């Protein structure tokens, strides 16, 4: 691999953010983090990023809305949704994520290599296209 892929990681919980960032960096990714949907979107606009990992349930603008906006702007951007709740506003988290445009959904907690694996797969697929 040449330059490491740059991942934008969004989660309102600083400890979750740090823990996942650690795992992704260990897996060879460069990680930029944001504590919420707005900050995350801003980061994605300002920095050149290769993929987004975002929590679904966050205060303020939720993950699903963020995914929708990211997808509208970057149709090819790999997006992985993560969620600690299986149901959000009465809907299955996985369904919600897919409908808003996420490419993969992972239920918290997960192993770092599960997330890394999903990102690698999505990045490989995108390169192939």
């Amino acid at each position, binding site marked *: 691999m040449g330059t490491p892929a740059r991942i934008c990681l969004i989660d309102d*919980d600083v*400890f*979750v953010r*740090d*823990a*996942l960032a*650690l*795992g992704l960096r*260990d897996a060879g990714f460069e990680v930029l983090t944001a504590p919420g949907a707005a900050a995350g979107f801003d980061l994605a606009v300002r920095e050149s990023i290769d993929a987004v990992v975002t929590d679904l*349930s966050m205060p303020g603008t939720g993950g699903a809305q963020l995914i929708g906006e990211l997808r509208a702007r970057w149709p090819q951007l790999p997006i992985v949704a*993560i969620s*600690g*709740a*299986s*149901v959000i506003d009465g809907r*299955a988290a*996985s369904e919600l994520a897919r409908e808003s445009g996420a490419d*993969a*959904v992972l*239920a*918290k*907690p*997960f*192993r*770092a290599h*599960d997330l890394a*694996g*999903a990102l690698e*797969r999505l990045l490989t697929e995108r390169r192939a296209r």
Partner: protein
Amino acid sequence: MSPARSQHVQSRLQAVVDTAVDGVMVIDAFGAVLMFNPACERMFGYRAEDVLGQNVKMLMPEPYQSGHDAYLRNYRESGERKIIGIGREVLGRKKNGATFPMDLSVGEAFEDDRPIFVGIIRDLTERKAAEKALRESAERMRAVVETAVDGVILIDAFGNILMFNPACERLFGYKAREVIGHNVRMLMPSPYRDEHDAYIANYRKTGEAKIIGIGREVTALRKDGSTFPMDLSVGEAKQEGESIFVGVIHDLSARKRTEEQLAQAQKMETVGQLSGGIAHDFNNLLTVILGNAEALSIRLKAREDLRHLADNIANAAERGAQLTQRLLAFSRRQILQPTAIDCNALVENMQVLLRRTLREDIDLRVAVAPQPVFALADAAQLESALLNLALNAQDAMPKGGALTLTTEEIELDPDSLGPGVDVRAGRYVSVCVTDDGSGMDAETLARAFEPFFTTKEVGKGSGLGLSMVYGFAKQSNGQVTIYSEPGLGTSVRLYLPAADAEAEPTQQRQLDLPMAPRGKEAVLVVEDDAFVRSHVISSLESLGYRVMIASDGREALGMLQSGARPALLFTDVVMPGGINGWQLAEEARTLAPELKVLFTSGYPLESLTSRDQVDPNALMLTKPYRKAELARRVREALDEPD
């Protein structure tokens, strides 16, 4: 006596007779009335002058009137005096023809050698009326007491039972004759029995009756030794100066049962809400723990002794996640994908899995409904519930036994499943798992669905298996019931809403796997834990592999010796039966040198090393693992160059 003195006596006696409350009358031997005092006048309504000289029988109704002449004649002829000196109750006849009860006592005297008779008459009308009223009142009371639904018991101040109504007979199982005269303590279990003695003693000493007028809940003892809750209200009455106590007993068994069921349901609901509520936060915490532990593990690559500590933390976090999932299942907050399930087909398919999952001494029997039965539920969850129930059944039959799976379609109404088990009226499919194992006592049965309630040894079960089944049934708009008798076995029946066969067909469940690698090779799985085994079987089969199974090393070697040639041996490291995973792999390779091996273990690596059991080059999959990891490691092992 001087004439003057005699005159005095005469007038005094006259005064006595005139003022007597009772009637005084004198007749001669022929019945002619010689004296008729004012009291007689009041009683009979005749004035004295109407009666004097007349025959006394005018004051008698029939048949006394007709009999009186004969009586007097007999007396005159034989001297036989039947009535003299004896009071008796007779009827008098008033002037207006009415009769009244009277007590008549007759004395005999002589006047100029002729006998005369003195009659003293007491009007009994009022006493009779009072007696009648009393009798009627007593009869009414008796009718009330005899037919009362509640028990009524009467005791004296010493606690001796005076009365025991039929309701009491039903409640306590004693006949009234068995308890009357005995102390009421016989109806009380310890320690109330001894408290009662002290209570009665205190009452006799101080007159302080603590319980009177206040109902309270106590426990009663039946003849057969069983007890039941009752509401006892006690009243006190005086009978000839002595206290007697009336106890009214209302059986609370049914109410208690309903209350307990309600409390249980509320408890389950509360735990459900609680666990559903914390699951999200809990999963975030576990993400932090897991992520940091994994990062730590990588940084401790050079310190193998410390690294496994970090790995343990990561494994524990994953187990925490599984627990959260089970709690969500119980709290009915898991995502279900209900489809019309052909339950007969599902049960028959599961039969294959179960035969390989359960011990050999479990005789698996399947009896499905003759016609297809379709239920509206989540197929994967139904399979998981049945597997749970089958494994519980196996645990209840440590020495083997029969496990029966049945399906049938039935019509239920809200009362079908008994009190406290709510179910909507309609058609249901019942899937029943029955064993003939050790069964459960009533106490265990009552708590069987409660989360974290387990009868298994610590570490053998989470206590969530039945709770998950319960949660699944409820979330599917169904119900679940357990019938069990100690020593006879247990029958768990799931009721799921019936679906029309024409509804959308059962869909293959989509697993959320990022392109798990698949294969078609044969894999020999050696695993002693039935739950893990069945999970591995279904995971590998869904990935396309052919699966052979063995529950220990000896069994696996036997299969290889008899010619089985799997491409991969997937074995647990630590197993009962004398052969561990390393030894099994070594011997297996002498039988089949081309065999690939993948080890799995839930034990920390260090403890394996310390026993010289670790092969540093071996492929190892640490428990617990996810299906994706299993898929990847299996593929890796198979693709390893020889």
